[in-house]
């Protein structure tokens, strides 16, 4: 506004000057006086303008200082927590190191392989990427909580909320020995955001994660400035996510996308050697990996000298291969097969949270009941939603159908940034009588008719636990039609917002904290139900999320997210279920102490083969 007033002042002076053009000589003194007056006005306007500019600069500098201070505090906190974790790990490691066989190799069996080995492509993502992502390392390393820390390939520095400066560390190389440069980082971001000149139509899997990036430019050969098109608190995190691929520009330009998909050269802790699609992927330890075994963050130089991934799609055959000694690690084995193997004493069973908080999304943004046109949607009544939560005995399901190690979920993940610690005290328990009472009170004593949709066969025992949930809901008065759906059909319907019924949604919490929340709770999210009307509470959730996305102050952001999670839970916005646990079985010589609180898969760099 000040700037606009200043422009108005200059404009007025200009108009006055124009106005004197046709005056007679008699009027000269008056004209001089007018000119002096106008000059004074001009000077005043200029002074005003300068003062405003100074004020703006001071504000900007102040903002930058505040942000820098906040970032420094954040960094200090991260360093402190990482140092503690490192000390603890070093202590544990010292005991075990003498028994590790550093020349050992291992063979791991997987149920699925990627179609191509280019980790940047949408075709290589999903569950099958576990057999490939160890070839890749992100720009920045991660602490045990999954937050980015400067180091690894590069350092970072925020310049206000406008750009992120990435400065390369020296001596980092790709698997082919070529140095990793700022130009490679630029190329990587361009390739993943469809801006690379050689192929703007590249089928990137990372466009969502990098949506904050604007233009980027090389400041010098070691420095890249990435503009933030939309200020994002997750900017650095998105360049540190597990499996984020760093691409060698020269190599890809030489071999093309097809060639790269068949023979990836990257920066990960394992080097790709060869593969046969549908059979095996062979790799060796990257002995030149820049993060040594005593490095404080992940990933690090692996213990295993080599690794072979084998594709054995059938679970029983995977277990048989382990029992026959053909493989050392059988990935993704259901608990009913894994537990007896662990109890035999001949194998180690690895459990870890799968970064997926299962919940059933309820269609509370739709006004009308799809079963009774003209009637209000019952799911918009909080009592009905609470009744659904009270009807499901989550503990019984995890104990009897799953591994018994699953945590109840209050949001995407209880380990998530901003999780309110007092929330477990307010958990919806299992109380079918209260559920019936609430349904009756809400006017649905005769029941609530609903479909219940889930993706069949995607997760361990999903058919079993969805049958159990449906039956428990029926017990209290819901009339449930359980519908198993094919993934392609489901994703299409969900994306087009055609789903009007509750559906099981296994959102990964491994995405950046704000990003995964955005996918799951934002009313405008890709996989949300059709949005017709919002309750006050849902609107508040959206508002808190929008505020958190651009809040650089750690404490304030945590508070926003905490408020969001609390409202979302207490409104019974979903039927809250549990965090999936992955189960893998390994030969007794293989040991794994997870580094991450929620590892996405077995951390190969952290897998140790003990001397026998």
């Amino acid at each position, binding site marked *: 506004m000040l700037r606009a007033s200043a422009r108005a002042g200059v404009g007025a002076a200009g108009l006055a000057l124009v106005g004197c053009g046709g005056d007679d000589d008699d009027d000269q003194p008056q004209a001089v006086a007018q000119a002096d007056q106008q000059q004074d006005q001009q000077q005043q306007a200029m002074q005003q303008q300068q003062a405003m500019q100074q004020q703006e600069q001071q504000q900007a500098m102040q903002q930058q200082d505040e942000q820098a201070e906040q970032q420094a505090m954040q960094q200090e906190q991260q360093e402190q927590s990482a140092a503690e974790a490192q000390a603890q790990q070093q202590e544990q490691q010292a005991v075990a190191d003498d028994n590790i066989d550093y020349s050992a190799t291992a063979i791991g069996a997987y149920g699925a392989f990627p*179609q*191509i080995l280019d980790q940047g*492509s*949408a*075709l290589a*993502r999903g569950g099958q990427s576990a057999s490939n992502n160890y070839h890749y390392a992100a720009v920045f390393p991660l602490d045990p909580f999954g937050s980015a820390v400067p180091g690894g390939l590069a350092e970072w520095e925020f310049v206000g909320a406008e750009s992120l400066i990435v400065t390369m560390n020296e001596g980092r190389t790709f698997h082919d020995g070529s140095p990793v440069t700022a130009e490679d980082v630029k190329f990587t971001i361009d390739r993943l955001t*469809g801006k690379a000149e050689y192929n703007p*139509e590249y*089928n*990137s*899997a*990372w*466009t*969502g*994660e990098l949506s904050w990036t604007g233009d980027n430019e090389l400041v010098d050969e070691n420095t890249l400035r990435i503009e933030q098109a939309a200020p994002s608190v997750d900017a650095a995190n998105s360049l540190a996510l597990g499996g984020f691929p760093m691409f060698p520009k020269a190599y890809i330009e030489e071999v093309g*996308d*097809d060639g790269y*998909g068949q023979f990836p050269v990257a920066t990960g802790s394992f080097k790709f050697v060869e593969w*046969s*699609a*549908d*059979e*095996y992927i062979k790799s060796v330890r990257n002995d030149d990996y820049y993060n040594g075994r005593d490095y404080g963050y992940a990933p690090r130089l692996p213990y295993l000298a080599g690794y072979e991934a*084998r*594709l*054995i*799609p*059938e679970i*029983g*055959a995977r277990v*048989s*291969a382990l*029992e*026959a*000694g*053909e493989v050392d690690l059988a990935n993704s084995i259901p608990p009913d097969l894994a537990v007896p193997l662990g109890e035999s004493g001949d194998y180690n069973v690895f459990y870890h949270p799968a970064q997926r908080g299962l919940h059933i999304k309820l269609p509370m943004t739709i006004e009308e009941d799809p079963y009774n046109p003209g009637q209000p949607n019952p799911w918009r009544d909080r009592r009905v939603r609470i009744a659904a939560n009270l009807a499901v005995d989550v503990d019984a399901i995890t104990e009897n159908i799953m591994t018994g190690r699953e945590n109840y979920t209050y949001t995407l993940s209880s380990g998530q940034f901003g999780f309110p610690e007092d929330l477990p005290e307010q958990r919806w328990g299992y109380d079918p009588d209260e559920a019936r009472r609430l349904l009756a009170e809400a006017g649905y004593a005769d029941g609530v008719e609903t479909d219940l949709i889930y993706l069949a066969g995607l997760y361990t025992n999903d058919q079993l636990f969805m049958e159990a949930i449906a039956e428990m809901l029926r017990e209290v008065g819901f009339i449930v039609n359980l519908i198993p759906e*094919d*993934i*392609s*059909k489901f*994703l*299409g319907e969900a*994306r087009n917002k055609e789903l009007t019924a509750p559906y099981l949604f296994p959102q990964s919490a491994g995405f950046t904290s704000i990003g995964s929340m955005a*996918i799951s709770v934002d009313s405008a999210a*890709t996989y949300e139900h059709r949005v017709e009307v919002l309750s006050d509470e849902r609107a508040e959730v959206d508002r808190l999320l929008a505020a958190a996305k651009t809040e650089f102050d750690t404490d304030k952001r945590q508070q926003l997210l905490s408020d969001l999670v609390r409202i979302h839970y207490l409104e019974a916005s979903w039927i809250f279920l549990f965090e999936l646990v992955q189960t893998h079985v390994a030969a007794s010589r293989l040991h794994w102490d997870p580094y991450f609180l929620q590892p996405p898969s077995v951390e190969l760099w952290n897998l140790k083969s003990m001397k026998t």
Partner: protein
Amino acid sequence: MASHLIPRVLQSIAVVFVVVSLVFVGSRLIGDPIEAYSARNATQEAIDAARDRLGLLDPMIVQYGNFLWGVLRLDFGDSIFSEQPAWDEVSSRLWATVQLSLAAFVLILAVGVPIGVLAALRRGSVPDLIARLIALVGQAMPNFWLGLLLIFIFAVQLGWLPTSGRGGFENLIMPAITLAGFGAAAAMRLTRSGMLEVLSNDYIRTARAKGLADRTVILRHAMRNALLGLITVLGIMLAQLLAGSIIVEVVFAWPGVGRLIFRSITLRDFPVIQVGVLVIAVWFVAINILVDISYNFLDPRIRVGGET
């Protein structure tokens, strides 16, 4: 023979054309591959761009025309998922499946036919009862179960054979037995019933009355006639082995074309489905022509030119 074969081949080409056209239409009716192809958080613009790039926004008739033109040039386009030529995707796995199918077929011939003959010759005896029991079990047992059972016994318990993969000859044994299980049992029963029928004919009695040796009667007179009925079934079996190896390939992690087609159907990878079905259709047709030709050699009464 040529006058019979040429129309037969032309007819077969028409059959392949119809089959492939049906697959073209059918594969587009089962769903949209782009939902599975795109990243989960892909924008609608990116999805539309992918559809456009793959020609899926063209009118169906244009897509069909492009497809037929591609077939004539043996250019089926790239796999939507691996981005490799669809033909390469199928052909690189084809030999593994052919190898498995032929091994299974040899087992069917080597086990099913002789035991069927033996059971017919010793009708009502203990060997006949055992053979019938084996045939019953072989046909009743699902092949994935047989595969897992073999793995448990011969790989896990005895350690004689590898559980899975495609390495040397030893890797082929259990998948081939599993794939042959049903076919061998069926061949055994068909051979037995065919032999029993032939053995009851007058000309067999006449041959024996002439004082011919039992061996000569069985090999020259009985088996040759019994096999005539069997050969059509064996031809269909050989064709089905190629198309029906999916389960065995999954259980034994055998990197063949069956598993590829199964996965491609799941992902709606049209180009690979089309090549896969084309290969199977050509295989079926070729086997049928071979069966026709083999009649000519086995039974002089059947003249491929139409004489009897």
